[in-house]
């Protein structure tokens, strides 16, 4: 198993390096001059050239790529062009919003979707099943920005139970921070719940057809234990896979939800940086996100290994 994991780790690192190259090339050909964005329409050509030189855009591309990677190795991400502050600080400040937001949404989604899916599977073809599946269809169809606006109108504007948006920070009052993340996490988790519940249902249904389930039932194992201990555990592999993929989608969803709830999170930073052509911020975030997805995939492999401890055959 160790060999399997080491091989997966090596693949991840190579993928990351390739991703950095792709990101760099894409940003090279992205139309728009960061210096012009910063200095506006009245700037003279010599002023633009001076600013480009200050940002280092006048150096050859391979040199810039290598100095970026060299900087990454010593955790020096450089200064944001737009804000003039270190990129690492910008990203750090945003992660303390987006990570808890994503974690809340994913936890909430798992806690609701797993029981819901198992429940639907156990009531297959009956009204309860239809109800859950109907909700699933609805959850997938409703755009999360619309759901977010709706939540905000109801619980912030009318009922005043939650703030309409914004993030007060974790100090001095962490409860206020959690409070501010409730509505965004809810709107982010809706689609996740829907997808995860459907996957859970079909995966549990598949395992319920297996021989060992019949054997368990024949032995007289109570139906509840059949479902939870035998069916769900074996159904978990596809569920974990989809859950991992959803973690990636959370980032895309965060861009929208953070705009609706004006949260200063990573999604909003990506959006703003693209609009400002703050290239140094974009490339570092994209690489960070790639790293996160690769890490999640790696962790999923670890979980597979734990769920199904049979030795891996080399692929």
């Amino acid at each position: 198993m160790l060999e399997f994991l080491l091989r997966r780790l090596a693949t991840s690192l190579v993928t990351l390096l390739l991703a950095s190259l792709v990101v760099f090339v894409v940003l090279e050909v992205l139309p728009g001059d960061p210096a012009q964005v910063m200095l506006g329409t009245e700037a003279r050509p010599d002023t633009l050239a001076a600013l480009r030189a200050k940002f280092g855009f006048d150096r050859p591309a391979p040199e810039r790529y290598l100095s970026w990677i060299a900087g990454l190795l010593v955790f020096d991400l450089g200064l944001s062009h737009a804000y003039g502050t270190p990129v690492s600080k910008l990203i750090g400040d945003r992660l303390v919003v987006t990570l808890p937001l994503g974690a809340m949404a994913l936890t909430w989604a798992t806690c609701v979707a797993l029981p819901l899916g198992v429940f639907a599977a156990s009531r297959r073809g009956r009204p309860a099943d239809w109800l859950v599946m109907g909700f699933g269809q609805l959850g997938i169809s409703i755009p999360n920005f619309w759901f977010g606006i709706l939540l905000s109108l109801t619980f912030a504007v009318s009922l005043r139970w939650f703030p309409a948006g914004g993030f007060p920070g974790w100090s001095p009052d962490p409860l206020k921070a959690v409070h501010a993340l409730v509505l965004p996490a809810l709107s982010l988790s809706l689609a996740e719940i829907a997808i995860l519940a459907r996957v859970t249902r079909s995966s549990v249904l598949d395992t319920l057809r297996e021989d060992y389930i019949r054997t368990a039932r024949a032995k007289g194992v109570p139906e509840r234990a059949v479902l939870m201990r035998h069916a769900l555990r074996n159904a978990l592999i596809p569920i974990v896979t989809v859950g991992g993929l959803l973690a990636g989608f959370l980032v895309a969803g965060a861009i929208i939800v953070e705009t609706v709830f004006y949260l200063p999170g990573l999604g909003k930073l990506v959006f703003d940086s693209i609009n400002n052509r703050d290239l140094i911020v974009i490339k570092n975030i994209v690489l960070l996100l790639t790293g996160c997805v690769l890490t999640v995939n790696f962790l999923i492999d670890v979980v597979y290994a734990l769920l199904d401890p049979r030795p891996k055959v080399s692929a």
Partner: protein
Amino acid sequence: MTIFTRRGAIGLTGAAGVLALFGEGALAQAPARAKDGAVVIGMSLEPPVLDPNLNAAAAVREITYLNIYESLARIDPRGGIIPGLATGWTVSPDGLEYVFKLVPGVKYHDGEPCDSADVKFTLDRLSAPDATAPGKSLYASIKSVEVIDATTVKVTLKNPDSFFLYNVALGDASIMGRKSAATNGTKPIGTGPFVFKERKEGDSVTLAKSPTYRHAASIRLNTVTFKFIRDPAAQINALLAGDVDTFPGFQAPELVGRVRADNRFAVVIGSTMGETILATNNGRGPMKDLRVRQAIAHALNREDLVAGESGFALPIGSHFPPHDADHVDLTKTYPFDIAKAKKLLADAGHPNGFEASLKLPPVGYAQRSGEILVSQLGKIGIKLTITQLQWPQWLAEVFKERNYDFTIVAHTEANDLDRYARDGYYWGYDSKAFKDHWAAVVRETDPAKRAVLIKAAQKMVADDAVNGFLFQLGKIGVWNRQLVGMWENSPTPSIDLSGVSWK
């Protein structure tokens, strides 16, 4: 200009009913933070570095000008020039020498004194040969800046420049300390009534009342938070939930009705410097022909375009703000007349019209007017194809490379008729007559004679139908009724808080 109240909309009976239900306290309430002299101001766009000498974004000036920094003179709410850091100035008869007298004893927020050496430092920062200021062309007429004594500074110009005083009153020319200027982008230090406290990138900028400001007693607010919310639906929710007290420049006219329906808020429509134009590439294809541009001018129905802005805009016939004293109404130069437009187009050799691109920046007014113009120009056979661009793309493709036929954009700078005299500007308008005329405007320092010249300049641009002149953008100000002293108009980018207070 006009204050719309909710009274007409809901009727007195309705209002009385609401009163009975919630009691008087629930109506027109100031938020709890008002007791502490705190206010939260919503803005659509977030500023980059907070140094207006070195960054062109309007949002930088909106936050810093007259709040954190001051200039030698200042623009008042009506667009006039009044003393700022300078108590007064004298101009030599030939219009080449300006002597500014500074207010004595002014200190920066870090305790350093503000003297004439800082004025020289700042003006050099803007105009020296190696200066990298985005507004360098505004200060190109400066020849030299001399320190006479600690509170006297003399500026010598290369040529008379009737816009010089206005330009040194702008936020671009915010006077900065020699010691603090280098870090003003992230830690702005000025002489104004408010001190920079904190910035949360992507979220907010917070200022606090400056104890060392020379008129500190007149400043009523203690804490000011600028909050950045881009999405219009989120802006409304933030207002209605009481998280934000005002949007001085609300960007979505179609949503104004929802704010008006809430008695806590006043909606105030004012003027801006933003002439919205159908910018036309005069150097390309059919648009080179005056008759084609005249045909387009005849095909414009400004009533519909203004309606597209929910009525919060004023029609214009040239590139000049209607509220300016020197404005002439030129909207009837080429009155709306489809038959005449078709004939002009046919005379120019395009009886069936032609196809052209309309490249739109990502702003509400351009999106709204774009759709309307596709229909209006379609009636005379000009088939426009809309392409949506991000701002950086617009700057590169339209503004710099001039690879476009038409675009819609609001020119928000003051005195921007001079763009028509520029070589290589993105409209590709090249008129020696206008260039000579504008040079005379710049040289003329007698206000009465200058006014005559400026009026003639508006007419030249309108007659040449350089661009399609659509409307002057309105400033939609939304604020809590208990908040007083906000600027109704926007003569220059600034959210001046020195006169703002809670009732």
